[in-house]
């Protein structure tokens, strides 16, 4: 299971240090942001349902590092990581989670409805698989407009069980759309293990039936995810059509909420302990220290910056007003 790590240890020199540092920093931002959100949920200060991404950071960060700002990503209920990785504003997300007027959706959405139009996030929603057809539509728009943009659908393993998924994969293949399907296989859909939902563990092959190439990667290895995404993006931009990535990972916290993932009707403490050893951030940190000779001081300073950024976002959100009740009727129509 540690093949990805070995690959990253053998990371070729041409990988730019700056990119690796950027990816490290972004993963830290997601991790620290969500640890604070978990505390806010535990304390009852954050009331909206929060589905934490902790443990899966390498996927959003690796994929988004391969994209341009004008490319769009389409998320789901667990999209804090997607949002930050694609360039969404941290303060606006924190404010949204705390229901404030300054939130990215003005307090109309909460944690599950994030938006950052300029960064290429046109909205995330919790209906499982709900944004996959929308991502297909974005890719169709780019094709009709003659733009070389790419749409990325982030979906969980559970979303591949929806009809949305199969209809969308067929359309994307038929029209050779610039679409990337990123399956974040964290082995659980809510409380059910993959083996309780699928007879075969073969999500990487699920697009092949439609002629969409698929690849399984270690989703806890940001470098591997990044390299694979670069290939898929290249295919999409050059008119070769859609690709599918199955990124194997693990959800550390519960399906929803702040608790460690031992409380959703399955006893999986041992499994979690194993995956904690495969922390994507620690893995990259080790590589940076041991292989690229980045100093511990520099990484500690980065961590400190991130700590301050999250504190500042929380301060911003707490200082922000709640939306005025009389505005409840606004924006039903554009």
């Amino acid at each position: 299971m540690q093949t990805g790590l070995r690959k990253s240890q053998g990371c070729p020199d041409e990988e730019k240090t700056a990119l690796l540092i950027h990816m490290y920093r972004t993963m830290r931002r997601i991790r620290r942001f969500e640890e604070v959100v978990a505390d806010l949920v535990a304390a009852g200060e954050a009331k909206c349902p929060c589905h934490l991404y902790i443990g899966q950071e390498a996927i959003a960060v690796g994929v988004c590092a391969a994209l341009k700002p004008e490319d769009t990503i389409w998320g789901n209920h667990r999209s804090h990581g997607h949002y930050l990785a694609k360039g969404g504003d941290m303060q606006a997300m924190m404010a949204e989670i705390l229901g404030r007027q300054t939130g990215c959706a003005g307090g109309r959405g909460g944690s599950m409805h994030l938006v950052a139009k300029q960064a290429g996030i046109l909205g995330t929603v919790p209906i499982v698989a709900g944004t996959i057809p929308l991502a297909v539509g974005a890719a169709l728009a780019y094709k009709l407009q003659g733009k070389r943009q790419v749409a990325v659908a982030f979906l969980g393993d559970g979303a591949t069980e929806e009809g949305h998924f199969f209809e969308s994969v067929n359309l994307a293949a038929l029209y050779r759309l610039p679409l990337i399907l990123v399956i974040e296989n964290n082995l659980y859909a809510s409380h059910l293990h993959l083996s309780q939902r699928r007879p075969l563990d073969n999500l990487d092959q699920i697009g092949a039936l439609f002629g969409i190439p698929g690849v399984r990667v270690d989703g806890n290895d940001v470098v591997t995810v990044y390299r694979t995404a670069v290939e898929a993006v290249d295919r999409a931009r050059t008119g070769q059509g859609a690709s599918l990535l199955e990124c194997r990972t693990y959800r550390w916290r519960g399906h929803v909420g702040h608790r460690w993932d031992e409380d959703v009707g399955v006893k999986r403490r041992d499994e979690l302990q194993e995956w904690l050893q495969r922390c994507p951030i620690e893995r990259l940190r080790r590589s940076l220290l041991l292989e690229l000779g980045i100093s511990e001081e520099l990484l500690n300073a980065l961590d400190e910056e991130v700590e301050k950024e999250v504190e500042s976002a929380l301060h911003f959100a707490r200082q922000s007003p709640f939306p005025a009740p009389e505005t409840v009727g606004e924006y039903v129509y554009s």
Partner: protein
Amino acid sequence: MRRISYAQAICEAHRQLLETDRRVFLIGQGLWSPWYAGTSLKDLDKEFSRDRVLDTPISENAVTGAAIGASMCGMRPIVFHPRMDFMLLAMDPIINQAANWSYLFRGQVSVPVVIRAAINRGGEQGAQHSQALHAFFMHVPGLKVVMPSTPYDAKGLLVAAVRDENPVIYIDDRWLYDLEGEVPEEMYEVPLGQGVLRRTGQEVTVVAWSYAAYLAEAACNQLAQQGIEVELIDLRSLKPWDEELVANSVRKTGRLVIVDGGWRTCGAAAEIAAEMSEVVFHWLKAPIVRVTLPDLPAPSSRTLEQAYYLTAQKIVQAVERVLYDADRFATTETESAVCESGEIVPDAQRGVGSGLLRGDEQRRLDRSKAA
């Protein structure tokens, strides 16, 4: 003025939209086949290429979702569902996504998509090839719903719908496709949310839309021969609907009949009746009456179809009832007021007494009480 059919008017609107706006494209099932669309999309794939007129796999959900996604990325798609029944497979993208999007994201991302559905019924097609589901969509905040009854409106409403920033459910009716009427050659809009007075009258207001408006027109002609002057309103848009137009008319006539080609319970007619009972209660001389489909799946056999669907005669009877039978409303078959024990409650106990002759008197009484 030039006369063309309802289907031709729809086709012309599509053609002119495709000609004048690069953002417009058509997507859905049956777009290359007259079997599905009649003449309403005739030859558009040949004129504008099959890249802009996409006849898709049988995937209502993903196709509708894709149109919605494309609309968020600068396009103006028109999705076509040749049978509204099958559009139920696209309820998630329409309701969860398209309808909510503007509100959810504080108006930062709009969804200018038109979702066109054809009501295609009759001819013994049975329950799943017959449904008129406009009330479902009317129920949902964030959607707009239009249902043209004339060639003129069919064209103008489609143009307006495509130019609107919001998701619009555009519902046409195959029973109207051959109906001819005057249609200007140039592009024009019929504003969303605006009803139209088809004829003026003093005694009773009839509100209808889509094919029901066509039937209502026939009913009005018949009633006119009996000397009954009906004020006929064609709503054209169901969401938003023209409350002011209806309320003003009812203030004049004091009687309201609503004709709806959909089901009765929680239907569009029920909503209009409820709203009007709040707004113009004191002007009413008789209870508001709905003429709707019964709460039944559409049957197949012709004798059952005849019993099921609206006819002009049913509308005539309803108008006669609000004019002449108001006192007996509580005990008529369709309007029985049944109390919880199951007994029919007599008028007097229910406080319903304001029939045709006593209506004006009662209204004056109510007003003086209010004053």
